[in-house]
Protein backbone atom coordinates (compact mmCIF):
# COMPACT_ATOMS: atom_id res chain seq x y z
CA UNK A 1 0.00 0.00 0.00
CA UNK A 2 1.20 3.51 -0.75
CA UNK A 3 2.00 5.91 2.04
CA UNK A 4 -0.94 7.74 3.62
CA UNK A 5 -1.32 11.31 2.36
CA UNK A 6 -3.86 12.19 5.01
CA UNK A 7 -3.96 10.56 8.41
CA UNK A 8 -6.73 11.43 10.85
CA UNK A 9 -6.03 9.90 14.23
CA UNK A 10 -8.55 9.53 17.01
CA UNK A 11 -10.24 12.86 16.71
CA UNK A 12 -13.18 14.09 18.73
CA UNK A 13 -15.17 17.09 17.55
CA UNK A 14 -17.80 19.07 19.43
CA UNK A 15 -20.40 21.60 18.32
CA UNK A 16 -20.64 23.47 21.60
CA UNK A 17 -21.98 20.70 23.88
CA UNK A 18 -22.86 18.26 21.14
CA UNK A 19 -20.30 15.50 20.67
CA UNK A 20 -20.30 15.16 16.86
CA UNK A 21 -17.30 12.89 16.16
CA UNK A 22 -16.15 10.10 18.45
CA UNK A 23 -12.62 8.80 18.21
CA UNK A 24 -12.58 8.92 14.41
CA UNK A 25 -9.52 7.68 12.53
CA UNK A 26 -9.15 7.47 8.76
CA UNK A 27 -6.27 7.16 6.33
CA UNK A 28 -6.31 8.41 2.78
CA UNK A 29 -3.53 7.04 0.58
CA UNK A 30 -2.08 9.10 -2.21
CA UNK A 31 -3.84 9.05 -5.61
CA UNK A 32 -6.86 7.13 -4.35
CA UNK A 33 -10.55 7.94 -4.16
CA UNK A 34 -11.75 7.35 -0.63
CA UNK A 35 -15.44 7.55 0.24
CA UNK A 36 -17.17 8.22 3.49
CA UNK A 37 -20.71 6.92 3.49
CA UNK A 38 -23.35 7.55 6.07
CA UNK A 39 -26.91 8.66 6.64
CA UNK A 40 -27.91 12.23 7.42
CA UNK A 41 -26.28 13.42 10.63
CA UNK A 42 -23.71 10.61 10.74
CA UNK A 43 -20.89 13.16 10.99
CA UNK A 44 -19.49 12.92 7.44
CA UNK A 45 -19.57 16.63 6.70
CA UNK A 46 -18.27 17.38 10.18
CA UNK A 47 -15.26 15.19 9.42
CA UNK A 48 -14.60 16.96 6.10
CA UNK A 49 -14.99 20.38 7.69
CA UNK A 50 -12.54 19.39 10.41
CA UNK A 51 -9.96 18.30 7.83
CA UNK A 52 -10.46 21.58 5.94
CA UNK A 53 -9.90 23.60 9.11
CA UNK A 54 -13.44 24.94 9.48
CA UNK A 55 -13.89 22.97 12.70
CA UNK A 56 -11.28 22.06 15.30
CA UNK A 57 -10.83 18.65 16.89
CA UNK A 58 -10.71 18.76 20.69
CA UNK A 59 -8.50 15.66 20.80
CA UNK A 60 -6.48 13.71 18.25
CA UNK A 61 -4.37 14.79 15.31
CA UNK A 62 -4.70 15.33 11.60
CA UNK A 63 -1.54 14.80 9.56
CA UNK A 64 -1.09 15.74 5.94
CA UNK A 65 2.13 14.69 4.22
CA UNK A 66 3.34 13.73 7.68
CA UNK A 67 2.80 17.26 8.99
CA UNK A 68 0.32 18.06 11.72
CA UNK A 69 -2.38 20.35 10.30
CA UNK A 70 -5.10 20.49 12.93
CA UNK A 71 -5.34 24.00 14.27
CA UNK A 72 -4.84 25.56 10.84
CA UNK A 73 -7.42 28.01 9.55
CA UNK A 74 -9.29 26.99 6.36
CA UNK A 75 -7.30 29.48 4.28
CA UNK A 76 -4.05 27.95 5.55
CA UNK A 77 -5.22 24.44 4.70
CA UNK A 78 -5.61 25.59 1.08
CA UNK A 79 -1.96 26.64 1.02
CA UNK A 80 -1.03 23.17 2.32
CA UNK A 81 -2.78 21.63 -0.70
CA UNK A 82 -6.23 20.75 0.63
CA UNK A 83 -9.18 22.13 -1.29
CA UNK A 84 -12.85 21.61 -0.59
CA UNK A 85 -15.99 21.52 -2.73
CA UNK A 86 -18.45 22.56 -0.04
CA UNK A 87 -21.91 21.14 0.49
CA UNK A 88 -24.54 23.17 -1.35
CA UNK A 89 -21.90 24.43 -3.84
CA UNK A 90 -21.56 27.87 -2.19
CA UNK A 91 -21.03 29.91 -5.38
CA UNK A 92 -20.20 33.58 -5.24
CA UNK A 93 -23.46 34.64 -6.93
CA UNK A 94 -22.45 38.21 -7.76
CA UNK A 95 -19.25 37.09 -9.46
CA UNK A 96 -19.12 35.76 -13.00
CA UNK A 97 -18.14 32.16 -13.73
CA UNK A 98 -14.63 33.23 -14.70
CA UNK A 99 -14.30 35.41 -11.59
CA UNK A 100 -15.41 32.50 -9.40
CA UNK A 101 -12.62 30.43 -10.93
CA UNK A 102 -10.11 33.24 -10.50
CA UNK A 103 -10.96 33.53 -6.81
CA UNK A 104 -10.13 29.81 -6.66
CA UNK A 105 -6.51 30.58 -7.48
CA UNK A 106 -6.25 33.45 -5.01
CA UNK A 107 -3.28 31.92 -3.17
CA UNK A 108 -0.03 33.28 -4.50
CA UNK A 109 1.58 30.13 -5.82
CA UNK A 110 -1.56 29.27 -7.80
CA UNK A 111 -1.80 32.64 -9.55
CA UNK A 112 1.30 32.05 -11.66
CA UNK A 113 -0.17 28.95 -13.25
CA UNK A 114 -3.66 30.38 -13.70
CA UNK A 115 -3.89 30.24 -17.50
CA UNK A 116 -2.67 26.67 -17.71
CA UNK A 117 -4.95 25.36 -14.98
CA UNK A 118 -7.90 27.32 -16.35
CA UNK A 119 -7.37 25.62 -19.72
CA UNK A 120 -7.47 22.20 -18.07
CA UNK A 121 -10.65 23.04 -16.20
CA UNK A 122 -12.34 24.28 -19.38
CA UNK A 123 -11.34 20.99 -21.05
CA UNK A 124 -12.86 19.10 -18.14
CA UNK A 125 -16.07 21.19 -18.11
CA UNK A 126 -16.50 22.86 -21.53
CA UNK A 127 -19.81 24.41 -20.41
CA UNK A 128 -17.90 26.67 -18.00
CA UNK A 129 -15.95 28.22 -20.86
CA UNK A 130 -19.18 28.85 -22.78
CA UNK A 131 -20.67 30.60 -19.75
CA UNK A 132 -17.58 32.27 -18.38
CA UNK A 133 -19.01 35.79 -18.50
CA UNK A 134 -22.36 34.94 -16.92
CA UNK A 135 -23.09 35.49 -13.27
CA UNK A 136 -22.77 32.18 -11.46
CA UNK A 137 -26.28 32.61 -10.05
CA UNK A 138 -27.67 32.12 -13.59
CA UNK A 139 -26.21 28.60 -13.92
CA UNK A 140 -28.25 25.41 -13.47
CA UNK A 141 -27.62 23.23 -10.43
CA UNK A 142 -25.39 20.82 -12.32
CA UNK A 143 -23.40 23.63 -13.90
CA UNK A 144 -22.94 25.23 -10.49
CA UNK A 145 -21.62 21.94 -9.16
CA UNK A 146 -19.14 21.81 -12.03
CA UNK A 147 -18.11 25.36 -11.26
CA UNK A 148 -17.67 24.50 -7.59
CA UNK A 149 -15.41 21.59 -8.56
CA UNK A 150 -13.49 23.71 -11.08
CA UNK A 151 -13.06 26.47 -8.51
CA UNK A 152 -11.64 24.00 -5.98
CA UNK A 153 -9.20 22.69 -8.60
CA UNK A 154 -7.83 26.13 -9.47
CA UNK A 155 -5.33 26.06 -6.60
CA UNK A 156 -3.95 22.71 -7.84
CA UNK A 157 -4.66 20.81 -4.64
CA UNK A 158 -3.06 17.49 -3.70
CA UNK A 159 -6.21 16.46 -1.87
CA UNK A 160 -9.71 17.50 -2.83
CA UNK A 161 -12.66 17.09 -0.48
CA UNK A 162 -16.06 16.58 -2.10
CA UNK A 163 -19.01 17.19 0.19
CA UNK A 164 -22.28 15.70 -1.13
CA UNK A 165 -21.68 16.61 -4.76
CA UNK A 166 -24.74 14.71 -6.00
CA UNK A 167 -27.20 16.43 -3.71
CA UNK A 168 -30.25 17.72 -5.57
CA UNK A 169 -29.00 16.84 -9.04
CA UNK A 170 -30.58 14.72 -11.81
CA UNK A 171 -29.20 11.16 -12.19
CA UNK A 172 -27.71 11.91 -15.60
CA UNK A 173 -25.90 14.97 -14.26
CA UNK A 174 -24.64 12.98 -11.29
CA UNK A 175 -23.24 10.34 -13.62
CA UNK A 176 -21.44 13.00 -15.64
CA UNK A 177 -19.99 14.60 -12.52
CA UNK A 178 -18.74 11.29 -11.17
CA UNK A 179 -17.01 10.60 -14.48
CA UNK A 180 -15.20 13.91 -14.04
CA UNK A 181 -14.24 13.00 -10.49
CA UNK A 182 -12.67 9.83 -11.87
CA UNK A 183 -10.85 11.88 -14.50
CA UNK A 184 -9.56 14.33 -11.88
CA UNK A 185 -8.32 11.41 -9.79
CA UNK A 186 -6.61 9.85 -12.81
CA UNK A 187 -4.51 13.02 -13.02
CA UNK A 188 -3.07 12.14 -9.63
CA UNK A 189 -5.28 14.21 -7.34
CA UNK A 190 -6.36 12.33 -4.25
CA UNK A 191 -10.07 12.59 -3.51
CA UNK A 192 -12.05 12.20 -0.32
CA UNK A 193 -15.76 11.93 -1.01
CA UNK A 194 -18.68 12.27 1.32
CA UNK A 195 -21.89 10.82 0.00
CA UNK A 196 -25.30 9.57 1.10
CA UNK A 197 -25.78 7.45 -2.01
CA UNK A 198 -24.24 4.09 -1.07
CA UNK A 199 -24.10 2.47 -4.50
CA UNK A 200 -22.66 5.53 -6.21
CA UNK A 201 -19.98 5.77 -3.56
CA UNK A 202 -19.03 2.11 -3.60
CA UNK A 203 -18.60 2.27 -7.37
CA UNK A 204 -16.44 5.39 -7.33
CA UNK A 205 -14.14 4.59 -4.41
CA UNK A 206 -11.02 2.50 -3.89
CA UNK A 207 -11.74 2.42 -0.21
CA UNK A 208 -14.78 3.27 1.92
CA UNK A 209 -15.53 4.21 5.48
CA UNK A 210 -19.06 3.89 6.77
CA UNK A 211 -20.09 6.28 9.50
CA UNK A 212 -23.00 6.25 11.86
CA UNK A 213 -23.69 8.52 14.86
CA UNK A 214 -20.30 10.18 14.70
CA UNK A 215 -18.30 6.95 14.67
CA UNK A 216 -16.61 4.86 12.00
CA UNK A 217 -18.56 1.58 11.86
CA UNK A 218 -16.91 -0.20 8.96
CA UNK A 219 -14.02 0.26 6.57
CA UNK A 220 -12.63 -1.66 3.65
CA UNK A 221 -12.29 -2.16 -0.09
CA UNK A 222 -15.76 -1.92 -1.69
CA UNK A 223 -15.55 -5.25 -3.52
CA UNK A 224 -14.55 -7.10 -0.37
CA UNK A 225 -17.39 -5.80 1.79
CA UNK A 226 -20.59 -7.79 2.13
CA UNK A 227 -23.80 -5.89 1.32
CA UNK A 228 -25.29 -7.08 4.57
CA UNK A 229 -22.40 -5.66 6.65
CA UNK A 230 -22.62 -2.33 4.81
CA UNK A 231 -26.34 -2.10 5.46
CA UNK A 232 -25.89 -2.91 9.13
CA UNK A 233 -23.13 -0.34 9.55
CA UNK A 234 -25.10 2.31 7.66
CA UNK A 235 -28.20 1.94 9.78
CA UNK A 236 -26.36 1.11 12.98
CA UNK A 237 -28.06 -2.22 13.48
Amino acid at each position, binding site marked *: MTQALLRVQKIDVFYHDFHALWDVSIEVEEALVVSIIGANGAGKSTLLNTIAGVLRPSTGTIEFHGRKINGL*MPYQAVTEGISMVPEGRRMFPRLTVLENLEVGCYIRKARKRKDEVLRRIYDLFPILEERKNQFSSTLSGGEQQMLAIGRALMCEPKLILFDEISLGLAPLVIKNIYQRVKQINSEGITALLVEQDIQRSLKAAHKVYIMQSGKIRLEGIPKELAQEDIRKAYFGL
Partner: protein
Amino acid sequence: MLSFLVELKGPIVNGLLLGGLYGIIGIGMSMIFGIVRMVNLAHGDLVILASYLSLVTMAFFHVSPLITLILVIPVMCLIGFVIQYYLLNRVLGKGMNPPLLVAFGLSIILQNLLLLIFTPDARALLTSISVQTIPVGGFLNLPVVYLVDFIGSIITIVLLSRFFNRTYMGKAIRAASDDEGAAQLMGINTKTIYAVAMGLATGTAAVAGILVGMTFTFYPHTGPEYLIIAFGVVIVGGLGSLFGTFFGGLILGLAQLLGAHFLGPGFQLLSGYVILLLVMTFKPTGLFAKG
Protein backbone atom coordinates in the same frame (compact mmCIF):
# COMPACT_ATOMS: atom_id res chain seq x y z
CA MET B 1 -42.00 75.63 -20.62
CA LEU B 2 -38.52 76.35 -21.88
CA SER B 3 -38.05 79.34 -19.62
CA PHE B 4 -39.13 77.12 -16.74
CA LEU B 5 -36.27 74.73 -17.53
CA VAL B 6 -33.77 77.56 -17.92
CA GLU B 7 -34.78 78.82 -14.53
CA LEU B 8 -34.22 75.36 -13.05
CA LYS B 9 -30.85 74.93 -14.67
CA GLY B 10 -29.02 76.44 -11.72
CA PRO B 11 -30.38 74.16 -9.00
CA ILE B 12 -30.18 71.13 -11.26
CA VAL B 13 -26.52 71.62 -12.18
CA ASN B 14 -25.52 72.60 -8.67
CA GLY B 15 -27.58 69.75 -7.23
CA LEU B 16 -25.86 67.19 -9.43
CA LEU B 17 -22.41 68.57 -8.60
CA LEU B 18 -23.16 68.62 -4.88
CA GLY B 19 -24.57 65.11 -5.30
CA GLY B 20 -21.21 63.99 -6.64
CA LEU B 21 -19.65 65.11 -3.38
CA TYR B 22 -22.37 63.27 -1.45
CA GLY B 23 -21.57 60.19 -3.50
CA ILE B 24 -17.93 60.15 -2.41
CA ILE B 25 -18.98 60.75 1.19
CA GLY B 26 -21.33 57.77 1.05
CA ILE B 27 -19.20 55.34 -0.92
CA GLY B 28 -16.95 54.27 1.97
CA MET B 29 -19.89 53.69 4.24
CA SER B 30 -21.67 51.72 1.52
CA MET B 31 -18.60 49.54 0.93
CA ILE B 32 -18.25 48.59 4.59
CA PHE B 33 -21.98 48.04 4.92
CA GLY B 34 -21.94 45.76 1.88
CA ILE B 35 -18.67 43.90 2.46
CA VAL B 36 -18.18 43.65 6.22
CA ARG B 37 -21.94 43.94 6.94
CA MET B 38 -21.23 46.53 9.56
CA VAL B 39 -22.57 50.04 10.06
CA ASN B 40 -19.57 52.28 10.50
CA LEU B 41 -20.90 55.06 12.69
CA ALA B 42 -17.45 56.69 12.69
CA HIS B 43 -17.43 57.23 8.91
CA GLY B 44 -18.36 60.91 9.13
CA ASP B 45 -15.67 61.52 11.73
CA LEU B 46 -13.10 59.76 9.56
CA VAL B 47 -14.05 62.16 6.76
CA ILE B 48 -13.46 65.13 9.07
CA LEU B 49 -10.26 63.57 10.43
CA ALA B 50 -9.00 63.60 6.84
CA SER B 51 -9.95 67.29 6.53
CA TYR B 52 -7.83 68.08 9.59
CA LEU B 53 -4.95 65.90 8.37
CA SER B 54 -5.02 67.85 5.13
CA LEU B 55 -5.07 71.12 7.09
CA VAL B 56 -1.94 70.10 8.99
CA THR B 57 -0.17 68.90 5.84
CA MET B 58 -1.02 72.17 4.06
CA ALA B 59 0.41 74.23 6.90
CA PHE B 60 3.52 72.08 7.05
CA PHE B 61 4.44 71.95 3.38
CA HIS B 62 2.63 75.10 2.15
CA VAL B 63 0.84 73.23 -0.61
CA SER B 64 -2.69 73.29 -1.99
CA PRO B 65 -5.25 70.89 -0.43
CA LEU B 66 -5.41 68.71 -3.55
CA ILE B 67 -1.66 68.05 -3.30
CA THR B 68 -2.10 66.86 0.30
CA LEU B 69 -4.11 63.92 -1.08
CA ILE B 70 -0.76 62.26 -1.84
CA LEU B 71 -0.04 62.03 1.87
CA VAL B 72 -3.51 61.97 3.41
CA ILE B 73 -4.86 59.05 1.35
CA PRO B 74 -2.16 56.55 2.39
CA VAL B 75 -2.27 57.72 6.02
CA MET B 76 -6.05 57.32 6.13
CA CYS B 77 -5.84 53.89 4.43
CA LEU B 78 -3.42 52.77 7.10
CA ILE B 79 -5.62 54.12 9.89
CA GLY B 80 -8.60 52.26 8.44
CA PHE B 81 -6.65 49.02 8.09
CA VAL B 82 -5.43 49.19 11.69
CA ILE B 83 -8.88 50.07 13.07
CA GLN B 84 -10.45 47.11 11.33
CA TYR B 85 -7.67 44.59 11.91
CA TYR B 86 -6.98 45.27 15.56
CA LEU B 87 -10.31 46.65 16.76
CA LEU B 88 -13.42 45.92 14.73
CA ASN B 89 -12.44 42.40 13.60
CA ARG B 90 -12.47 41.35 17.23
CA VAL B 91 -16.16 42.05 17.59
CA LEU B 92 -17.35 40.73 14.20
CA GLY B 93 -19.59 37.68 14.26
CA LYS B 94 -20.85 38.58 17.72
CA GLY B 95 -24.15 40.07 16.62
CA MET B 96 -25.17 43.50 15.37
CA ASN B 97 -24.55 45.55 18.51
CA PRO B 98 -20.85 45.12 19.41
CA PRO B 99 -19.41 46.52 16.12
CA LEU B 100 -21.99 49.32 16.23
CA LEU B 101 -20.93 50.28 19.75
CA VAL B 102 -17.21 50.09 18.98
CA ALA B 103 -17.70 52.34 15.94
CA PHE B 104 -19.81 54.72 18.03
CA GLY B 105 -17.06 54.85 20.66
CA LEU B 106 -14.53 55.50 17.96
CA SER B 107 -16.67 58.37 16.71
CA ILE B 108 -16.73 59.99 20.17
CA ILE B 109 -12.99 59.51 20.63
CA LEU B 110 -12.19 61.03 17.24
CA GLN B 111 -14.42 64.07 17.82
CA ASN B 112 -12.90 64.80 21.21
CA LEU B 113 -9.39 64.18 20.02
CA LEU B 114 -9.91 66.71 17.22
CA LEU B 115 -11.49 69.12 19.70
CA LEU B 116 -8.51 68.75 22.03
CA ILE B 117 -5.91 69.31 19.34
CA PHE B 118 -7.58 71.83 17.05
CA THR B 119 -10.01 73.70 19.38
CA PRO B 120 -13.67 74.17 18.37
CA ASP B 121 -12.83 76.90 15.83
CA ALA B 122 -14.22 76.74 12.31
CA ARG B 123 -11.65 75.69 9.74
CA ALA B 124 -11.52 75.47 5.97
CA LEU B 125 -9.02 74.21 3.45
CA LEU B 126 -8.46 77.55 1.77
CA THR B 127 -7.45 77.55 -1.84
CA SER B 128 -7.90 79.92 -4.73
CA ILE B 129 -10.41 77.61 -6.42
CA SER B 130 -12.74 77.85 -3.43
CA VAL B 131 -13.98 81.22 -4.60
CA GLN B 132 -13.67 80.99 -8.39
CA THR B 133 -16.65 80.48 -10.66
CA ILE B 134 -17.01 79.59 -14.32
CA PRO B 135 -19.77 81.37 -16.25
CA VAL B 136 -21.79 78.88 -18.26
CA GLY B 137 -23.97 80.10 -21.15
CA GLY B 138 -24.38 83.54 -19.63
CA PHE B 139 -27.04 82.54 -17.13
CA LEU B 140 -25.17 80.36 -14.66
CA ASN B 141 -22.07 80.76 -12.56
CA LEU B 142 -20.59 77.41 -11.75
CA PRO B 143 -18.49 77.27 -8.58
CA VAL B 144 -15.18 75.70 -9.61
CA VAL B 145 -14.87 73.84 -6.32
CA TYR B 146 -18.17 71.99 -6.98
CA LEU B 147 -16.80 70.92 -10.32
CA VAL B 148 -13.59 69.68 -8.68
CA ASP B 149 -15.69 67.76 -6.12
CA PHE B 150 -17.66 66.09 -8.86
CA ILE B 151 -14.65 65.15 -10.96
CA GLY B 152 -12.74 63.96 -7.89
CA SER B 153 -15.64 61.71 -6.94
CA ILE B 154 -15.93 60.22 -10.39
CA ILE B 155 -12.20 59.53 -10.63
CA THR B 156 -12.19 57.84 -7.21
CA ILE B 157 -15.17 55.68 -8.03
CA VAL B 158 -13.83 54.65 -11.44
CA LEU B 159 -10.49 53.69 -9.86
CA LEU B 160 -12.24 51.73 -7.11
CA SER B 161 -14.42 49.94 -9.60
CA ARG B 162 -11.37 48.92 -11.65
CA PHE B 163 -9.72 47.64 -8.48
CA PHE B 164 -12.76 45.54 -7.59
CA ASN B 165 -13.14 44.11 -11.08
CA ARG B 166 -9.58 43.53 -12.16
CA THR B 167 -7.37 42.60 -9.22
CA TYR B 168 -7.23 39.35 -7.26
CA MET B 169 -7.63 41.34 -4.06
CA GLY B 170 -10.69 43.14 -5.44
CA LYS B 171 -12.33 39.90 -6.52
CA ALA B 172 -11.45 38.30 -3.18
CA ILE B 173 -13.19 41.18 -1.38
CA ARG B 174 -16.31 40.70 -3.50
CA ALA B 175 -16.18 36.95 -2.91
CA ALA B 176 -15.87 37.44 0.85
CA SER B 177 -18.87 39.75 0.77
CA ASP B 178 -20.90 37.09 -1.09
CA ASP B 179 -19.96 34.14 1.15
CA GLU B 180 -17.33 34.53 3.86
CA GLY B 181 -17.08 30.80 4.63
CA ALA B 182 -16.66 29.78 1.00
CA ALA B 183 -14.07 32.54 0.50
CA GLN B 184 -11.98 31.07 3.32
CA LEU B 185 -12.12 27.69 1.58
CA MET B 186 -10.51 29.40 -1.43
CA GLY B 187 -7.49 30.36 0.66
CA ILE B 188 -8.69 33.86 1.49
CA ASN B 189 -7.99 35.21 4.95
CA THR B 190 -11.22 37.13 5.33
CA LYS B 191 -10.07 39.06 8.39
CA THR B 192 -7.25 40.61 6.37
CA ILE B 193 -9.63 41.17 3.47
CA TYR B 194 -11.99 43.13 5.73
CA ALA B 195 -9.09 45.25 6.95
CA VAL B 196 -8.10 46.00 3.35
CA ALA B 197 -11.71 46.90 2.55
CA MET B 198 -11.81 49.27 5.52
CA GLY B 199 -8.49 50.75 4.40
CA LEU B 200 -10.02 51.46 0.99
CA ALA B 201 -13.15 52.90 2.58
CA THR B 202 -11.13 55.29 4.74
CA GLY B 203 -9.11 56.10 1.62
CA THR B 204 -12.34 57.32 0.00
CA ALA B 205 -13.07 59.16 3.25
CA ALA B 206 -9.72 60.92 2.76
CA VAL B 207 -10.78 62.15 -0.67
CA ALA B 208 -14.20 63.11 0.68
CA GLY B 209 -12.64 64.93 3.64
CA ILE B 210 -10.39 67.05 1.48
CA LEU B 211 -13.17 67.90 -0.97
CA VAL B 212 -15.55 68.71 1.91
CA GLY B 213 -12.89 70.88 3.55
CA MET B 214 -12.37 72.83 0.34
CA THR B 215 -16.11 73.31 -0.15
CA PHE B 216 -17.43 74.01 3.36
CA THR B 217 -16.11 74.99 6.76
CA PHE B 218 -15.67 72.21 9.29
CA TYR B 219 -15.42 71.77 13.06
CA PRO B 220 -14.40 68.80 15.21
CA HIS B 221 -18.10 67.94 15.56
CA THR B 222 -19.05 68.12 11.87
CA GLY B 223 -18.58 64.37 11.34
CA PRO B 224 -22.12 63.22 12.25
CA GLU B 225 -23.59 65.65 9.67
CA TYR B 226 -21.71 63.78 6.96
CA LEU B 227 -22.59 60.46 8.54
CA ILE B 228 -26.25 61.35 8.02
CA ILE B 229 -25.53 62.27 4.40
CA ALA B 230 -23.67 58.99 3.94
CA PHE B 231 -26.65 57.13 5.41
CA GLY B 232 -28.94 58.94 2.98
CA VAL B 233 -26.75 58.06 0.01
CA VAL B 234 -26.56 54.39 1.02
CA ILE B 235 -30.33 54.18 1.52
CA VAL B 236 -31.24 55.90 -1.74
CA GLY B 237 -28.57 54.16 -3.83
CA GLY B 238 -28.82 50.76 -2.23
CA LEU B 239 -26.06 48.25 -1.70
CA GLY B 240 -24.19 46.31 -4.28
CA SER B 241 -22.76 48.72 -6.77
CA LEU B 242 -20.36 51.63 -6.56
CA PHE B 243 -22.07 53.54 -9.32
CA GLY B 244 -25.46 52.89 -7.69
CA THR B 245 -24.17 54.59 -4.56
CA PHE B 246 -22.86 57.46 -6.66
CA PHE B 247 -26.26 57.91 -8.34
CA GLY B 248 -27.81 57.80 -4.88
CA GLY B 249 -25.63 60.80 -4.06
CA LEU B 250 -26.75 62.62 -7.19
CA ILE B 251 -30.42 62.08 -6.39
CA LEU B 252 -29.96 63.30 -2.82
CA GLY B 253 -28.07 66.41 -3.96
CA LEU B 254 -30.64 67.15 -6.63
CA ALA B 255 -33.53 66.70 -4.20
CA GLN B 256 -31.94 69.09 -1.72
CA LEU B 257 -31.27 71.92 -4.16
CA LEU B 258 -34.56 71.59 -6.04
CA GLY B 259 -36.35 71.60 -2.69
CA ALA B 260 -34.45 74.72 -1.69
CA HIS B 261 -35.32 76.34 -5.02
CA PHE B 262 -39.05 75.74 -4.80
CA LEU B 263 -39.64 75.96 -1.07
CA GLY B 264 -36.86 78.24 0.16
CA PRO B 265 -33.36 77.57 1.52
CA GLY B 266 -34.72 76.39 4.86
CA PHE B 267 -36.20 73.34 3.16
CA GLN B 268 -32.95 72.10 1.61
CA LEU B 269 -32.25 69.37 4.17
CA LEU B 270 -35.90 68.50 4.65
CA SER B 271 -36.53 67.86 0.96
CA GLY B 272 -33.54 65.52 0.88
CA TYR B 273 -35.04 63.53 3.73
CA VAL B 274 -38.46 63.46 2.08
CA ILE B 275 -36.85 61.67 -0.88
CA LEU B 276 -35.16 59.34 1.59
CA LEU B 277 -38.51 58.56 3.17
CA LEU B 278 -40.11 57.92 -0.21
CA VAL B 279 -37.34 55.51 -1.22
CA MET B 280 -37.60 53.67 2.10
CA THR B 281 -41.36 53.39 1.64
CA PHE B 282 -41.47 52.21 -1.96
CA LYS B 283 -38.09 50.53 -2.54
CA PRO B 284 -36.48 49.82 0.83
CA THR B 285 -33.53 47.99 -0.77
CA GLY B 286 -32.50 51.22 -2.52
CA LEU B 287 -32.96 52.29 -6.13
CA PHE B 288 -29.88 50.61 -7.59
CA ALA B 289 -29.52 47.58 -5.32
CA LYS B 290 -28.17 44.42 -6.91
CA GLY B 291 -28.71 40.81 -5.92
